[in-house]
Structure formats: structure tokens, C-alpha cells
């Protein structure tokens, strides 16, 4: 089974790894919003430079990033096809027996591709340098204002962190079951419809059994350690903003503010 690279945490020790998860999450949210503001090309150079810095500071292998970005290219090709067929604006740049390609179709696809790529690079720099548990702490922090309206932020954060924690465990189990069933002659790649359905069943049924068993065990273990939903919980490791976290926030916030300002003044 192929392993995903998207959203995977890479245990290393880089500048980005040591930033406060809350600062990283907020910065990514701000920058992702910023990505969707400009309509001309020049601002994207600034965003791309920021993305390059982020990759550099995360100490990530460029091959790793490229592999994560590959699916976007397929998506763009598909988008290009749809746009060529449907977008009929701008000047004609290619024409063959009444079939015409308009410049706007290319420009539009290019823009969307760049936006998606930037978004993915930012989020990958976040997920690759932030442990899932730290990420939930950050989510809890961002959601915390909602607790004023009795929204159970801590419980939601706990649920998210458990879900994240179990993704690798369950995917490992799934891999094991796939191997076991392959040994019994199940073919997950070929075969006609009914064979495929039974192949899927042979994976899904055991996986659900395991997931439920795990859930019961985990519930018991949590209760045995005194977890009570709704009770206030304290944190073993208090997160603290440092200067570098403030600078990250300042940079991303100023990019966003700058973009909004220029947009309102019709400079883009």
C-alpha cells in the first residue's frame, strides 16, 4: 500500500518545528486567506517567496514537497480541459477548424493552480513540522472563544486529537488486514464487480471490528485515569508565545492587511 505524504508529520528539528503551534496555525490561516485576494500576478511572487522561506525553515526535502504537490498537477490538467471547453473570454490564441482556445482559459487555470499550490505548500509546512497533538492544542486555542457560548471546545479538541492519533494506527491495521486477505487470494486491484465488493468487505468488516474494540478499550483506559467529559483540564506543557512566534504572526498579518488594503484601493 502506498503511504501518503500529505499531512504527515516529519520528526526533525528545524526552526519551524520549534515554533509555537498556535502561531503556525494562525499564520497559515492568514496566509491562505491572503492567497485568494490578489487578481494580478505580482503579489504571488511575494507569496511564493514566503512559501520558499517556509520550506527552507522547515528543513523539508524538496522531493517530499514535490511528491505532495503532484496530485495538484492532475487536478490542474483536468481544470484546464474544462476551462478550454467552457471559458470563451479574452483573445483567441489558438484556433483549429472552428475550435478555439481563449487566453482567459489559460490565465484562469494558471491562477487557480498557483493558489492551490501555495495553499498546499503552506499547510504542508504546518503539518510536517507540527505534531498532531500540538495541532489540536492550537485548534483548541483558536476555538476557545466559542466556550463562551457553551461550545465544548476541550471535548472537541480531544475528539480531534484522538481521531488524528488513530489514523496511523488504523492505517497500519488496514495494511495488515489487506496483507492477510491477499494471502487468502483476495485481489484488491482486479476482478469484476462482485469480487471487488467482497474484497472491500473483507477489509472493512475486520477494520470496523478492530476500531470498535479499540474505542471500548480507550474509553476504559481514559476513565481509569480519571477523565471526565466537561470537567476543566489542565495542560502538562503550557504553550508560550516567544519573539519568533510574534514575528511570524506579524509578518503574515501584515501580508494579509497589505493585500486587503491594495485590493480596496484597486491596485490589484
Amino acid at each position, binding site marked *: 500500500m502506498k503511504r501518503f505524504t500529505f499531512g504527515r508529520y516529519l520528526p526533525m528539528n528545524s526552526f519551524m518545528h520549534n515554533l509555537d503551534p498556535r502561531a503556525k496555525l494562525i499564520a497559515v490561516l492568514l496566509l491562505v486567506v491572503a492567497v485568494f485576494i490578489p487578481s494580478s500576478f505580482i503579489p504571488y511572487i511575494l507569496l511564493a517567496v514566503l512559501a520558499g522561506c517556509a520550506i527552507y525553515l522547515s528543513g523539508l526535502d524538496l522531493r*517530499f514537497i514535490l511528491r505532495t504537490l503532484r496530485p495538484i498537477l492532475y487536478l490542474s490538467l483536468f481544470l484546464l480541459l474544462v476551462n478550454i471547453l467552457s471559458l470563451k473570454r479574452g483573445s483567441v490564441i489558438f484556433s483549429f477548424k472552428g475550435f478555439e482556445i481563449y487566453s482567459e482559459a489559460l490565465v484562469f487555470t494558471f491562477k487557480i493552480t498557483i493558489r492551490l499550490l501555495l495553499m498546499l505548500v503552506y499547510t504542508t509546512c504546518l503539518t510536517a513540522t507540527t505534531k498532531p497533538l500540538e495541532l489540536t492544542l492550537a485548534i483548541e486555542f483558536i476555538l476557545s472563544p466559542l466556550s463562551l457560548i457553551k461550545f465544548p471546545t476541550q471535548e472537541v479538541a480531544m475528539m480531534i486529537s484522538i481521531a488524528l492519533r488513530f489514523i496511523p494506527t488504523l492505517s497500519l491495521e488496514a495494511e495488515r488486514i489487506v496483507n492477510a486477505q*491477499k494471502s487468502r487470494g483476495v485481489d484488491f486491484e482486479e476482478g469484476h464487480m462482485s469480487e471487488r465488493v467482497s474484497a472491500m468487505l473483507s477489509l472493512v468488516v475486520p477494520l470496523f471490528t478492530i476500531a470498535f474494540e479499540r474505542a471500548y478499550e480507550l474509553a476504559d483506559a481514559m476513565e481509569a485515569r480519571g477523565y471526565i467529559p466537561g470537567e476543566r483540564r489542565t495542560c502538562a506543557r503550557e504553550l508560550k508565545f516567544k519573539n519568533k512566534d510574534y514575528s511570524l504572526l506579524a509578518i503574515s498579518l501584515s501580508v494579509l492587511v497589505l493585500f486587503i488594503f491594495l485590493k480596496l484601493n484597486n491596485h490589484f
Partner: protein
Amino acid sequence: MRIHFEKISYIYDRNLPFAHTALSDIELDIREGKITAIIGETGSGKSTLVQHLNALLIPSSGQIELGDHLIKANEKNKNLKKLRKEVGLVFQFPEYQLFESTILDDVAFGPIRFGISKEESYERARSALSNVGISPILYDRNPMELSGGQKRRVAIAGILALDPKILVLDEPAAGLDPEGAKRLVDLIVSLNREFNKTIILVSHDNDMVYSYTDDTVFMRDGRVIYHGPTLDLFNDGELIKKNHLLLPTVVNFKNRLREAGFEVDENARTIEQIAEAVSRRISR
């Protein structure tokens, strides 16, 4: 069926920053018709090695000869299904592979997948179940209703029903109660003796390995550091000391008897055999 590993290496996540070499330069010839144990600490590469035996993993370099099949690195290998029918692999905690609604259906599932007719598949399922000691009253029950030991027997029957020439078991007795474990070991031995199956089993239980296996492959850090008769491995004091190998109870017992002046047969493998020797000596 010949099993021959030639310069096998395997690397997990080969192109990622956390690439990890699990096997390096394995040369191995496993004897036909024997019971071979694979031992070694957690993470020494036992399970990785075992998954090469039916081509679930394809080596990163080197080649494996398995009967008529030749599995080479970096090559699209065909006919894996035929190979998987000849080499039956029972995973750790195989009870998790059960998914059909009745025990009989689940055991017959494998043979049907391999293209054997329905009637014959069910015929094979019945005989496999009776071989592992599951009584016909249980055939129509749901596998989830069984006890842990019974589930494992049913899962093993699911592989036996394929009638493989080689049976590979990864920690077959893990998590079973002593009685269930003993019955399982008896079953494995009888599969070897009566049905002449080549058996390869991964184990942490040196007592079991000593008492019931012919050969042992001892692995450490992805390399084979001993491969030969099981009795010789546990007689090699230096190797045992160097690798902190836990001595089987029987070997400890034999050593104590020797210290007390008893003559003990070098080849005695089980407590029963030693007890017999001792009682003979006393009655003399």
C-alpha cells in the same frame, strides 16, 4: 518446494527521509519438510522476512527462489496468486481477518478466491476445520461468538483450506492461554508430521522453539546471525552469551541435572523425554 534467498535487502519508505533498512544481505536456504523457527528481538526483521515468502513484499535488492517462482527486485512479478496458494501465510493475530457471517463460509472463502469450485471449497473447509479441532456444531456460528483460541484455529483453518505446501506462521501462539498455546503447537507439529508440510514459524518462545523445531534462523538488526539445527544453537554457549539469548527451560534443567551428576541425553528436547531418562536411571 525450494526456498532460497539470495542477497535480499529490504528498505521501508525507500524515497522518504525516514527510510529504514529492515533486512540487509540475507542469504538463506530453508529445508523442505522441516519445521524452521525464526527468532530474534522485536524489530530484528522477522516479520519483514516472512512477508517475502509469499511476495507481499518484494525485495529492494536480491532475488528469492520459491519452488518454480523467482521473485526479483524492481520487477513486476506475475503469477503471485499461484505462489500465494502454495505458500500459506498466517499473520499475527489472524483472528482479525475473519469477516464472513459463518465459520464455514469464512474458511471456504480462501479456496473460492483461488478459483476452486464451491463444492470442493466447502469440502476442504470442513476437513481443515476438523484438522484444527473445531467441531461441526460450530460451523454455522458467527466467528465473533468464538473464544480467542477458537478464532485463531478458524483463521488458521482458513489458510489450511488452501492446501499450501509451505505454511508460514507469525507468532501463532501470541496472546493465547497456556493450554490453547499447547494445543496449537501440537496442531502445527502434526501438520508437519502427518501432512508433510514445510513449516516456518516466527516465535518469541524459546521453550517452544527448542522442543518442537528442527532448524532455527536467529536474526538481529536485519541480518541472519545463525541458521542451522535448533539443538546446536542452544548448545553454543558463546553465541548465546554474546546475544543475551534466553535459554529454554529444558536446557537449564538439563544443565542442573548434569551438575547434580545425572547423565542427560544431548538430544532430549522436552521435559517428558528428560523425565523418562531420569526415571530409567533411578529404577536402575
